[in-house]
């Protein structure tokens, strides 16, 4: 079989058990060469457990993870040479300089001395940290440290890059900067990337394909566009009435194009529709006919939030506040 036909990552019915609890329950997917693949799910869904099995950090209970043709359980050393990993927590040495951090990791990967310096120079340029190369890491901002970690994961020119929630804890500007940098790295180096995230916009913006994971199971897998198209209704209408009435849901369901109505809070509803403009017009007329005024009205296209709700029956944001199911045993100092 030629290397072109081998998927960069092939996960086959993989399972991880902690005692009686099954954190990952038989997930299967392939990631093609050069693809950015997203694992989307709330905290505790099993994303980090899955990525840790693929990166040889924790043993696989059952099933297989094949990375660039190498089984993580049988040929972990070969896997480690081919992958770059950015863990969830910021783990660069704060007492070392930016360059020292990269240099130590280059040595851990046995990057030849002749190419080590050039690799580091190129990476510092790519992550825009050249002028900070001699700065102690403790003096960097969170966004800069995350960029340093990304450079660190690439110091040995890996084929496949695993990023576990790469923008968690970053401000919006830094998040966008990281996205742009990852896109640029993908284009320049032809990297295959697997990213876990619980940010919908991140998955939407970065990923070629997205796997939605919930309670250790794969509930959906496709491109962001196809996932959104798979949700009945092309538009989302969010409406808030001035007065609450138990009749609103039924009245909304009767409007043209409406496929589902979801109560958000008091007198506020989220309506999925296949015809946003017609539904909106009828909604306004219906309100007038019942002598009701609208507090707010918002029409938008289907988002990955809607996709997540459609496939899991829950809001991702709620899950972030009240995580359910198994959460990877917290190690001290690790970010939640």
């Amino acid at each position, binding site marked *: 079989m030629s290397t072109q036909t081998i998927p960069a990552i092939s996960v086959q019915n993989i399972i991880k058990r902690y005692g009686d609890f099954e954190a990952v329950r038989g997930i299967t997917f392939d990631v093609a060469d050069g693809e950015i693949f997203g694992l989307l799910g709330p905290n505790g869904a099993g994303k980090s457990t899955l990525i840790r099995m693929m990166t040889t*950090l924790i043993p696989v209970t059952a099933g297989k993870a094949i990375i660039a043709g190498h089984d993580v359980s049988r040929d972990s050393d070969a896997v*480690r040479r081919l992958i770059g*990993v950015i863990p969830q927590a910021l783990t660069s040495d704060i007492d*070392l300089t930016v360059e020292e951090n990269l240099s130590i990791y280059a040595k*851990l990967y046995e990057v030849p001395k002749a190419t080590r310096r050039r690799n580091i120079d190129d990476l510092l340029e790519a992550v825009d940290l050249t002028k900070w190369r001699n700065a102690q890491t403790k003096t960097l901002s969170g966004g800069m440290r995350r960029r340093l970690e990304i450079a660190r994961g690439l110091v040995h020119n890996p084929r496949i890059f695993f990023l576990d929630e790469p923008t968690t804890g970053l401000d919006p500007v830094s998040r966008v900067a990281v996205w742009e940098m990852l896109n640029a790295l993908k284009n320049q180096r032809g990297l295959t990337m697997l990213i876990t995230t619980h940010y919908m916009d991140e998955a939407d913006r970065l990923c070629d394909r997205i796997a939605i994971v919930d309670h250790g199971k794969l509930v959906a897998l496709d491109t962001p566009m196809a996932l959104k198209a798979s949700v009945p209704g092309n538009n989302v209408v969010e409406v808030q009435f001035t007065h609450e009435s138990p009749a609103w849901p039924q009245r909304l369901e009767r409007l043209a194009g409406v496929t589902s109505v979801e109560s958000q809070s008091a007198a506020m509803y989220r309506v999925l529709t296949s015809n946003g403009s017609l539904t909106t017009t009828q909604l306004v007329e219906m309100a007038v006919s019942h002598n009701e005024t609208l507090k707010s009205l918002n029409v938008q296209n289907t988002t990955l939030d809607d996709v997540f709700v459609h496939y899991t029956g829950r809001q991702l944001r709620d899950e972030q506040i009240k995580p359910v199911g198994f959460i990877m045993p917290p*190690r001290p100092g690790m970010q939640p």
Partner: protein
Amino acid sequence: MQRMWAIVEREMRKFFRSPALMMVSMTLPLVQLIILGHAFGGKIRNARMGVVDYDRGSQALKIHEAFNAVAANIRTFTTVPYQNEQQAREDVRNGKIDGAVIIPAQYSRRVLAGDSPSIGLVVDNTDQVMSGALEAEMQSLVQALNEPIIQPYVVQQITLKIVELYPYVEYMKYLLSGSIALAMYVAVMIGGGMLYIDDKARGVHEGYLVTPITRLELVLGLNIAGAIKAILSGVSLTVIGTLLSGLGVIFHPMALVQLSLLIVAISIAFNGMMFLMMVRVEDPLVPRAMFGVLNTLLFFPSGAISPVSGLPPWLKAIAAIDPFTYAVHGFKSILLKDGGFTAIGPDLGFLTLFGVASLLIATPLFKRTL
């Protein structure tokens, strides 16, 4: 090997970036050396001894003269006259005086009659150092009073002549061996144990584990770095401590060689022991909680502050497997006795074997995964 040395390089760069660790590792032993060395090193001076004289005869006067001689020369105590025994006892009890001598009525008459009179000594035996010093001084004084005025023709008294092999060793010098070992222990505990667990908790090890580094390379890298930190701490405290204590042994080349070997062996032993204890620990609180307990458990039975021979059997059993014991013995042999390789050979052997054995047990216990 490059990967192993990368771990060593990382650890040492961090170590030299944070000189606080070096300072912290030496502060406790140095403070202990200086404070304890001076606190326990001196003899009792100018204690206050109450004297209740119910006799006031010629023989009692001899006792007063002997007391005056003590106050003027050796100065172990000065006397405070009392009128009655009850008051003197009460003042010993409440700490106004350190002891009281009671010369009973008819003392002089009974001495002259050869009637074996007694002198009373009241001491506060909750303070064993003070009471011991006063008792010893009084014993010596009474012995002098008992000397016959006319020596018998045949003297049958047996005397003991003490030959001291080494010059008088002040307590600070005695304590120095333990202080150097303690500095190395603190360096290993903080620089090895605590930082190792902190790194684990911060996810630094997770970063290592996704690289191709092998378990052995990682274990050796961490331990070599830990041993180097302990060596630096040991060398620093040896130099500072010997200069503070007035020991010139570090200027003798052979002693330097012996000290170097001993310090390396201790580093291997302490670091191996610490790594074995920490290899499966995840919680950063554990090494901090263990610090004091281990310090007490390992330092005090080692002979660092009092001889091992005076310990109860169960503590002697701990001392027998405690690397501190061999570290302290080795340092004392070099610093105080110029014992040579014959004296430190068993210490070097035990410490090296202990360290290697600890690492051999710890290595398979070290998890290559999370």
